[in-house]
């Protein structure tokens, strides 16, 4: 039975996240971008909303169950506040959710509790590689068997909080397939490079990481000997990025709409010109369509539908174009003012271009 209404519980979470995005993230987003950092207090406050904790069952320290739909709703709202902030707050999910989704019982028991039952700590994952045709299903980083170990070789980039990470998951190609491996802090052969600077999401500290003959015990492979199907993880990564794109686009749309209603031109408000009004109408339409597509993809993930992977892919495909279109137009509607860093739209445009490259930086 079709329904487009979040449950009461979901709505409560959404409301809490909205308050955080409005009162905590948005006010500091510009300074965080310029200063390339968020305060620990802001991140900790976001962590305490319990978005991740609510997706982890009680047995592993959480208080709910994983729902991609709930995750999408929460990320959409949080990213409205700030995308880099969302990625920072939710970074531990990059470590915890793949373990929940693909880990063995032992792995869940060992690794989830210390993440979930504590204050925010730097846990992360390394997926992205520094090639124009980076493909999560065809990684250059490789894992090979050596007795009771896997040996991992390769280079990753855009690994959030890698420098201080307590542990991370690294994805590598094993027998032609992408597999995740748990890498604890201090593992030999893991070299974290200088902080990597990007076009957008300046406030998210991210690093290149080199893996040189890194020996990982076989029990550290997600799912242990049996391994796992990376598809589920990739789908959840893609849907998360799509949801954040919706949130950012909503922010850019609302800001440029409100500006257009204030700004006078030729004796009327600029929003009263069809050239501007039609741009806004198309932005609103596109956001709503892609939003529903992201919701549907998430719903399919939760239900284990056959079409889930394809829909997640389509949702991200549409979301990256939507975010670019909407954020570009937001700058255009503000004209010269849009180009000035006093307004947030130039930042949303820089962040907005990133959704084509963010797969691996958030998960639901």
């Amino acid at each position: 039975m079709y329904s487009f209404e979040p449950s009461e519980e979901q709505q409560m979470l959404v409301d809490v996240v909205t308050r955080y995005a409005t009162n905590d993230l948005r006010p500091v987003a510009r300074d965080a971008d310029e200063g390339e950092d968020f305060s620990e207090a802001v991140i900790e406050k976001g962590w305490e909303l319990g978005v991740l904790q609510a997706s982890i069952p009680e047995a592993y320290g959480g208080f709910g169950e994983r729902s991609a739909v709930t995750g999408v709703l929460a990320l959409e709202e949080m990213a409205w506040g700030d995308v880099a902030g969302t990625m920072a707050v939710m970074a531990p999910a990059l470590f915890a959710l793949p373990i929940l989704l693909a880990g063995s019982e032992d792995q869940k028991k060992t690794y989830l509790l210390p993440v979930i039952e504590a204050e925010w700590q730097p846990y992360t994952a390394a997926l992205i590689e520094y090639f124009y045709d980076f493909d999560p299903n065809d990684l250059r980083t490789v894992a090979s068997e050596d007795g009771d170990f896997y040996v991992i070789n390769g280079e990753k980039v855009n690994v959030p909080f890698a420098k201080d990470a307590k542990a991370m998951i690294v994805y590598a190609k094993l027998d032609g397939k992408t597999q995740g491996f748990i890498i604890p802090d201090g593992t030999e052969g893991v070299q974290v490079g200088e902080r990597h600077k990007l076009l957008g999401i300046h406030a998210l500290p991210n690093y290149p990481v080199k893996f040189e003959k890194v020996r990982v015990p076989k029990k550290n492979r997600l799912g242990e000997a049996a391994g796992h199907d990376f598809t589920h993880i990739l789908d959840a990564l893609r849907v998360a990025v799509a949801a954040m794109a919706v949130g950012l686009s909503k922010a850019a749309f609302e800001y440029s709409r409100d500006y257009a209603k204030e700004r006078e031109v030729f004796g009327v408000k600029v929003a009263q010109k069809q050239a501007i009004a039609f741009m806004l109408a198309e932005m609103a339409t596109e956001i709503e369509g892609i939003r529903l597509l992201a919701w549907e993809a998430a719903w399919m993930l939760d239900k284990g539908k056959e079409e889930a992977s394809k829909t997640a892919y389509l949702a991200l495909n549409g979301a990256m174009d939507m975010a670019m279109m909407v954020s570009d137009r937001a700058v255009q509607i503000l004209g010269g003012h849009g180009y000035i860093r006093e307004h947030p739209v130039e930042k949303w445009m820089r962040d907005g271009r990133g959704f084509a490259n963010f797969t691996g930086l958030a998960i639901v």
Partner: protein
Amino acid sequence: MIDFEIPKPIAQISTLVQTVAENMMRPVARHFDEYEHEIPWDYIEFMHNATRAMGTSSSMAPEEKKEEGGEKRPPIAFQRLVTMVEILSWGDAGIYLCTPGGMLGAAAVAAAGTPEQKQRFLNRFKGEKPVFDAMAMTEAGAGSDTSAIRATAVLDKATNEWVLNGEKIFVTAGHKALIDTDGFIVVWASIDPSAGREGMRSFVVEAGSPGCTVEKMEHKLGIRASDTVTIVLRDCRIPFGNILGSPEVERRDTKGFKGAMTTFNTTRPIVAAQAIGIARATLEFTKEKLAEAGVTIRYGVPRQKLTAVEKDIIDMETMLRASWLLILEAVWMADNRKGKPMVASASKLKAGDVVNKITQKAVEILGPLGYSREFLLEKWFRDAKIVDIYEGTGQINRLIVAREILGYSGSMLR
């Protein structure tokens, strides 16, 4: 709880409708395109009898069946309707428009009529013979700007009849409603030309009304199976009770006009659903032809690695799905009595864009095959264009969405 599961009753009827689309529409689609103005009676009779036999309604003014005892089920009538419209338009958009039963005219009656009027005008669709209706709104000088309508209705107090004068163009299925079957049209006319929109009313003009003639059948780019006619009203007399809404003009009160406009909350997503049917047909055909040529679409691969054709197909699927979900959301709202002009118009403008992008790109991708009349693709390209025009052009719907999101009245954003 957010849910995208297709409701069981809709899934069931979809299977039936798909059979009709495959067997009764596709095989004759080319014929009724080549022989414009021929009427697909086989399809019409079949649909009429099937509808009667199943006791279901293909009407645009669906009636919710009241459950006796038991739990009250969530209303899904418009959700069911858009699903059927989508599939029938997948079969053939022109022949779909020849589906007998209550369409736009009935929707207007359902939205603005009294219970008595509904009884009088809508029962004819349940009779032995197929019956059509039509909406007569557009005039030579009044297209999207319906407030510029010049047709008039004057009450003759001696006979208690409305006397209608004016000329209506682009009336979809007007010939079938007035000449080929015993149907009716809903005519928009002013009862007080000095009052502007406040004076605008809709009237039911039944087949056989004196002074009402069908004068011209248009030759069109697409949807050729469907007749599009000019209707002339010369001192056309209809009973007093055929007015929809109040016969009084209340100054500074556009309730009558706005009331009629709320029908757009449902008719626009329904028309949008036609676009999705044409677009889905196009996409399926294009993928089939590509597969025959050994091209498979690699979903899940980053864009940088895709061929141009793969990227086109993936973009088409993305926009098609997003567009359909907007329609579902719009009718879900309408079913739950919280229809919004913003979502209804957004679904329509998006679908109009999407079907034209998809059909135009598909003809390009398939090269000489796409351009050939051996296949239906070139026809779908022609059929598609109407969806961006009727029931509010893409531009009118942008205007409506813009007004909604800006909180502007018509005078603030012209």
